[in-house]
């Protein structure tokens, strides 16, 4: 399959990239890892007149923990996240997530920034980032701004990124002591999008009650869904079996799946319930220092 012809731009600085983006507007698509964009272009579901390849811009690929924040450059490959020692040890939810995106070959090119900015509700990082409560950094022609993840996704394949704006950094709050998280994805086979997936991030107090809870859902709605009512079930409470069951039911109610080849509405909703309970148990075990 051959994509439609386009003009190729390979800016070597962020300023050049944002200026190009601002000038070309909707005519241009950003090429990051290309693992979603290029398949879409080959299928002619997307035929941009201009492609702006940001892979030659230095300084967009890094993973570093500074001042209580894990800062991740938008161009960081999924395989780099997967291999990162700090991610593996301190951010288990993120480590779980990057391991189940597509397949190992795709992960060698796919980027975390692309996964978020593409805003496919079937993508895995969006729910994880909602559960972690991250902040995104966008760069535009008039400078930089920070966007809370809760206001980033506005619809399927739609974000609040404006004309000329580029996602440049993801800022994950460092976990407080007693924190743990987990991502559980049910997929028909390696490389498939999730039938459903659940991201959970918890912080427990010394007495075992829940101080902070993040729960978000993948591919059961038009956007990733933050299951706020399920989070509220947990916060302040001891995480015993009945509480976990109530949170899981609440998460299932928050899901808005559609029936497709991956399953019926009732099936997917129940899958969310089961995955939420399992992910919470895993997160609790990790928060308590049991891997």
């Amino acid at each position: 399959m051959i994509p439609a012809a386009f003009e190729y731009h390979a800016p070597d600085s962020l300023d050049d990239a944002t200026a190009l983006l601002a000038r070309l507007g909707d005519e241009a698509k950003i090429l990051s890892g290309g693992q979603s964009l290029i398949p879409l272009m080959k299928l002619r579901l997307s035929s941009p007149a201009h492609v702006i390849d940001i892979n030659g811009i230095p300084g967009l690929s890094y993973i570093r923990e500074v001042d209580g924040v894990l800062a991740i450059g938008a161009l960081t490959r999924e395989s780099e996240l997967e291999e990162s020692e700090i991610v593996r040890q301190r951010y288990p939810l993120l480590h779980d997530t990057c391991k189940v995106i597509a397949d190992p070959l795709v992960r060698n090119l796919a980027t975390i920034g692309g996964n978020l900015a593409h805003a496919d509700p079937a993508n895995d990082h969006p729910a994880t980032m909602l559960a972690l409560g991250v902040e995104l950094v966008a760069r535009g022609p008039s400078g930089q701004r920070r966007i809370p993840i809760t206001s980033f996704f506005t619809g399927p394949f739609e974000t609040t990124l404006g004309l000329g704006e580029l996602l440049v950094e993801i800022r994950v709050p460092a976990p407080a002591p007693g924190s743990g998280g987990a991502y559980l994805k049910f997929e028909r086979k390696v490389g498939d999008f999730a039938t459903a997936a659940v991201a959970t991030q918890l912080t427990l107090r010394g007495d075992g009650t829940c101080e902070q809870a993040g729960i978000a859902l993948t591919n059961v709605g038009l956007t990733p869904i933050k299951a706020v009512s399920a989070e509220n079930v947990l916060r302040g409470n001891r995480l015993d079996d009945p509480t976990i069951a109530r949170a899981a039911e609440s998460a299932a109610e928050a899901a808005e799946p559609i029936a497709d080849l991956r399953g019926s509405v009732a099936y997917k909703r129940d899958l969310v319930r089961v995955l939420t309970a399992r992910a919470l148990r895993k997160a609790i075990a990790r928060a308590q220092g049991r891997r």
Partner: protein
Amino acid sequence: MRVQLSINGETHEADVEPRLLLVHLIRDVLRLTGTHIGCDTTHCGACTVLLEGRAVKSCTMFAVQANGKSLMTVEGLEQNGKLHPLQEGFMDQHGLQCGYCTPGMLMTSYAFLDRHPAPTEDEIRVAISGNLCRCTGYVNIVKAVQHAAAALHEGAAR
């Protein structure tokens, strides 16, 4: 657009349209037809090549993105008329039936063994999970990779 890239240590130049896929540059322009096109939809991995040492699907990259980069294809495995231990392993352990997925399997395994010289069976299975064998010959493919890991280990110890 003019692109210059190194494949298996040899420098190639070509004038390409930006929309030309890397796999088409490799196969149709440079006539290195060992790299296969399978699904053409980023699923099967038959088109796997190494880009700066990392296994990637060459049907899901534009040729212009490889400008100035170093690539390795299945043709680069054999050295001085001697097959690579992975190729020997695929022969010895019957790691191929129709052979269509084999170049991709070899390249993925090559990059994998480079980073994981003593893998478990589970690690091998995860490593090749982006490469599909429609003959479903995975059991022998895993054995072939294990065979190569052992041979490479022996070679390194000698």
